[in-house]
């Protein structure tokens, strides 16, 4: 596809369950970002990958959150022991990390609801 793809688009899970959210970035984009967004707020940074490695994971709120990008393309955000406060839209973005180019392309997001 031409854009960033996120699956599923919606996920409802019970408190305490484990969830995985998937992001397919634009082909060739080396940088990949995860954000979460609550209603009325701007996107909150979670983690940034450059290739396969996490260049900055300072936004992950606690050790229940983990993200991987094993082959430098698709990324999975994993949330263990979900809590109701984890309910939000989770956004993924990718970009080319050339020196002058900082345009990031966002997916439509995964709306996570923890009940």
């Amino acid at each position, binding site marked *: 596809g031409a854009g960033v793809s996120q699956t599923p688009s919606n996920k409802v899970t019970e408190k305490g369950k484990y969830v995985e959210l998937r992001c397919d970035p634009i082909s060739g984009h080396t*940088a990949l970002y995860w*954000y979460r967004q609550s209603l009325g707020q*701007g996107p909150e940074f979670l983690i940034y990958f450059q290739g396969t490695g996490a260049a900055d994971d300072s936004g992950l709120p606690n050790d229940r959150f983990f993200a991987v990008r094993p082959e430098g393309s698709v990324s999975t955000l994993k949330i263990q022991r979900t809590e109701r406060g984890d309910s939000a839209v989770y956004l993924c973005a990718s970009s080319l990390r050339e020196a002058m180019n900082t345009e990031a392309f966002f997916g439509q997001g995964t709306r996570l609801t923890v009940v």
Partner: protein
Amino acid sequence: LAKTTQPISMDSYEGQEVNITCSHNNIATNDYITWYQQFPSQGPRFIIQGYKTKVTNEVASLFIPADRKSSTLSLPRVSLSDTAVYYCLAVGVGNEKLTFGTGTRLTIIP
């Protein structure tokens, strides 16, 4: 890390030019000013980016004075479809993580 400050909301009538100002007093030498637009139920979309002076594309213009402590996004002749939240970010080498604030909620009135 450069913090950006922008108005929480703005209203404008259709056909007007809209200017949204962003303050970034502590912007780093390497940082660019980048603006994103977000519609409800969609991810943010890149609008424009600049370092200094004026940048113009088919959507908007961006004015950045010499001291780079502020910038102004200018939307010419807005329409109802420009109703969205607009975010101003400082991004650069060593500061790649795209820190969004609460943005400016722009409402276009018919």
